[in-house]
């Protein structure tokens, strides 16, 4: 049971927008050029954004071209209303307009577009239906990256939900959803329960390995007697046991300043707790990959009382200015939250810079907008050292696909496949292509059919990121 308190929500909003210190706007002196980021934080929010109040085009660039805008030169008033709280962070930001989940639009699963988007957004792959339930059929990028960069003796990844259990977006593998933990105390225990514990050498500690290898043997023996499907399940469990041994040792030997868990009785409190836990855990290398899945904001957070944000506002974007204002505030609220995370990461010195230099933050959404479009979704990148930051990238709707859009008509073209962004992030972390061992080339959906049988290429990366 959640307890909502409007007063606290409003305080949270004020704090997030008003208490930022201004980080340097100069492009940061970087380490080795193109050095991969060491960590990944993925933020997923609900209901996309509203492009008319999200997009930025102060120079009046054409909509039918690829173009780039230097964000660092933009004044606060040049920034869009939805993204205004991120103005202080413009030098560390890449905003990407014009990517689409075309694969989701085509997906034949026949489930809610929310459900389709939640699966496509990080797996870049189709929905699989299992007993009437839509599930991911391949790993999400956070997990592929974790497989590549996680330390074997630390947590592979952590998934959190803020504001109640958010719909799952992370998949460890086919049919293996990782639901974000919504109880911050449970997450706190998972992250910090074992750290700073290396001193004791009691029997339980000394014999841990023996116990776990005995347990592992039991899983092996059982697997031999089961159906292929159950064998696989038991096999996964056995592998996790085998990881656990070094993980326990590693976490115990880690020395880490454990953050106190503050008040978590509302959305703002939970987000602040998530930020402080992730920052602390990543700074002492307990985990390198995290996803925070943010549930639909309660109306109170954006000054709406008595109505359901999802039904009464998100769904009404096409026909109501009140809804546009509300959902613009909605995105701005999240933008302020993102700024809070960036502030926390940037406050911790690391090498010649700060933690933010070694952390890539991806902010994306399950939908393009509140009325269930998947075309031209909001995407943002922050921090890291792979790309030159401080840029706004615009892609035109030049994909030959009839996308369903909010005005009820189908458009004769759509934005570019979002798989290219997923692959770009994969390449930023130097994840090798599993088939060739060369650099990452494509998500599982490589090609789609558009209008008149036209081929839609979903492979490759967003080349403009590397310019």
């Amino acid at each position, binding site marked *: 049971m959640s307890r909502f308190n409007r007063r606290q929500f409003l305080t949270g909003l004020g704090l997030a927008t008003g208490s930022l210190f201004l980080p340097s706007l100069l492009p940061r002196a970087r380490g080795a050029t193109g050095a991969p980021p060491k960590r990944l934080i993925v933020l997923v929010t609900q209901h996309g954004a509203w492009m008319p109040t999200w997009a930025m085009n102060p120079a009046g660039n054409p909509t039918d071209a690829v173009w780039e805008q230097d964000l660092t030169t933009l004044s606060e008033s040049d920034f869009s209303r939805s993204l205004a709280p991120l103005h202080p962070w413009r030098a560390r930001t890449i905003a990407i307009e014009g990517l689409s989940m075309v694969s989701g639009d085509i997906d034949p699963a026949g489930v809610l577009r929310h459900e389709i988007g939640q699966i496509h957004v990080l797996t870049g792959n189709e929905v699989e239906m299992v007993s009437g339930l839509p599930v991911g059929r391949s790993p999400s990028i956070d997990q592929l990256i974790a497989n590549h960069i996680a330390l074997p003796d630390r947590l592979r990844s952590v998934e959190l939900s803020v504001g109640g259990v958010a719909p799952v977006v992370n998949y460890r593998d086919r049919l293996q*959803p990782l639901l974000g933990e919504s109880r911050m105390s449970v997450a706190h225990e998972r992250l910090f329960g074992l750290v700073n514990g290396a001193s004791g050498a009691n029997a339980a500690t000394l014999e841990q390995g023996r116990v776990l290898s005995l347990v592992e043997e039991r899983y092996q023996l059982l697997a031999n007697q089961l159906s292929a499907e159950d064998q696989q399940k038991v096999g996964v469990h056995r592998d996790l046991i085998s990881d656990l041994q070094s993980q326990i040792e590693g976490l115990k030997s880690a020395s880490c300043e454990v953050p106190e868990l503050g008040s978590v009785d509302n959305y703002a409190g939970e987000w602040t707790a998530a930020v402080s836990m992730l920052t602390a855990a990543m700074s002492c290398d307990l985990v390198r990959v995290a996803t925070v899945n943010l549930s639909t904001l309660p109306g109170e957070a954006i000054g709406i009382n008595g109505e359901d944000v999802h039904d009464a506002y998100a769904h009404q974007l096409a026909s109501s200015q009140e809804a546009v204002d509300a959902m613009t505030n909605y995105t701005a609220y999240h933008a302020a939250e993102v700024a809070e995370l960036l502030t926390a990461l940037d406050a911790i010195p690391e090498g010649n810079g700060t933690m933010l230099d070694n952390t890539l933050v991806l902010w994306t959404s399950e939908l393009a907008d509140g009325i269930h479009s998947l075309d031209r979704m909001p995407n943002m990148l922050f921090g890291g050292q792979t790309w030159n930051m401080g840029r706004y990238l615009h892609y035109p709707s030049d994909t030959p696909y009839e996308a369903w859009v909010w005005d009820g008509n189908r458009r004769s073209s759509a934005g570019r496949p979002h798989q290219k962004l997923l692959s770009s992030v994969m390449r930023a972390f130097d994840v090798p292509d599993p088939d060739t061992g060369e650099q990452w080339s494509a998500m599982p959906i490589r090609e789609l059919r558009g209008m008149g049988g036209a081929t839609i290429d979903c492979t490759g990366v967003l080349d403009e990121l590397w310019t």
Partner: protein
Amino acid sequence: MKNRQPWNPDIAVLALGLALSGGAAGCNETSEPGPTGPEPEMLVADPAPLTRLTAEQYNNTVRDLFDPVPIGHIIFPVELEGRGGFENNVTLNTATPALVETYQRAARQVADAVLEDLPGALGCDPNAGTCARDWLVGFAERAWRRPLTTAEQEVLLQNFDTWATDHDVTSAVTLSITFLLQSPDFIYVPRLGADAPAPGEAAIPLTDWELAARLSYFLWNSTPDAELMDLAREGRLRDRQVLADQAFRMLADWRAVDMVVSFHRQNWDFDDVGANPIDLDFYGPVFEERGMTEEDDKSDFYYLEYSPQARFESDVFIAQHVFYGDSRLETLLTTNRTWVTQNVAEIAYQQPLDTESEPVSWSALIPQEGNDQLRAYQQEYFPIELDPTQRAGLFTMVGFLIAKAGPSQPAPVRRGVTIIDRLLCTELHPPGDVPPLEEAETEAPRTNREKYEIHKRSEACAGCHASIDGIGLTFENYDSMGRWRDTDNGFPVDASGELLSTDQDGPVSNAVELMRKLGSSRTVHDCYTRQWFRYAFGRNETIDDAPTVLALQEGFWNSDGNIIELVVNLAGSYSFRHRRGQP
């Protein structure tokens, strides 16, 4: 909770009669599960996919294994449920990193709790003679719900001896417990079956030990007790009469009450009760009447008192009607008798409470403020007869009504969808997209009902929403706090609707009429049976299960919808006791 009275024994006799009506000895496999059951060649064995203990089952199991040693509640990571909402569904039960870490931590927590009073837990001096060693062998059998093989016992004892020598007996006990409780033999409930099937037979009977665990995790959500284990050891559980006797014995235990409540909690979404935000301004007068003026007071009252009281009213309702009432589904859907707190009686039902009547005491663990820690909840619920023109069954009572409501106005679509999905088992196919809705009128809708009239004007919406809104709008007499209302925004409430695609189709003037139709509907009874099948088998039914499900549905309908009989028939069914051979 352990001292509840057993339920009405008359029902037991009736149910036993039906459950075993297939043969005099009660073990005639050819005619089960009843006179209307399938032909012998249609008896279907269960594919028996590997089930894993749910969080609830894990906690119950360690509680019962170590009783009376207090273990403390173990918190598990959040997990996805299968569609239909059952936590034991095998579809997505592959372990995750967070879960495996939790098993490790939980095993340590259990072992630490046992160490608090080791002689007490072991029943002897751990350092004296073979005390600890003997205890371990017995404990291993209870934890793994079967005797260990010679090889397994050797591994266990060799390690125990090594640990006792290298460290001490206490450490050896701790380490052995953590080994046993992290093993798949404890965490999963394998059903491998007795022997290879005879040639030409695809079904394998479960072993007596597997039947003991199968029964106990179905009927108790917990581990088998000593009596079940003894019967398994004697090889008697494969006798269907013995198994049925055990089912009745177990159903008279408070753990069965918990299980039946848990089934309904999952099936009918009780966990949603209290999760909704309420508009404290819109409902301000309700709070102010009770002397609350500060927003914090209102908020605390609504979320920390009213909501939990409404939430557990549903549990008490189920427990009382199934175990101390007539056990009929129709009663759950149509009765005006419930058990309430004073707050709910006065606010939702606007009726005085007779606090002289004998209350039912209910306790539970609930999330603390902020959803993070758990706290003990204890509350007395007093019996009450509600106005039968306003209330008929659980779905017209406060829990369901506040769970499916917006902050100020009720949510007819969510109410309708829940009933269609959970009472009619009709899978709704959500719209691929939400078409933009033209505002035909310039005026804002005057009532909540008018807001939804827009569905009728769009062809794309009307198809599904005719049945959804036809049900959902009949609940317009109940506001977001579950209170009866005759007017909405100053206009008279129109709660008329229509039931479609059932055996009881037709117009109704309000939710009370709707619920009476649903209560006597064969469609609803058949759906309820399917839900129990899913719960009992940890999976959704397939086409292969049709004979089993049809026989159960026929039995349930012919028993006048007796829930206890249905549960016993499930436990006695051929599918429940046989697994399919490996393909």
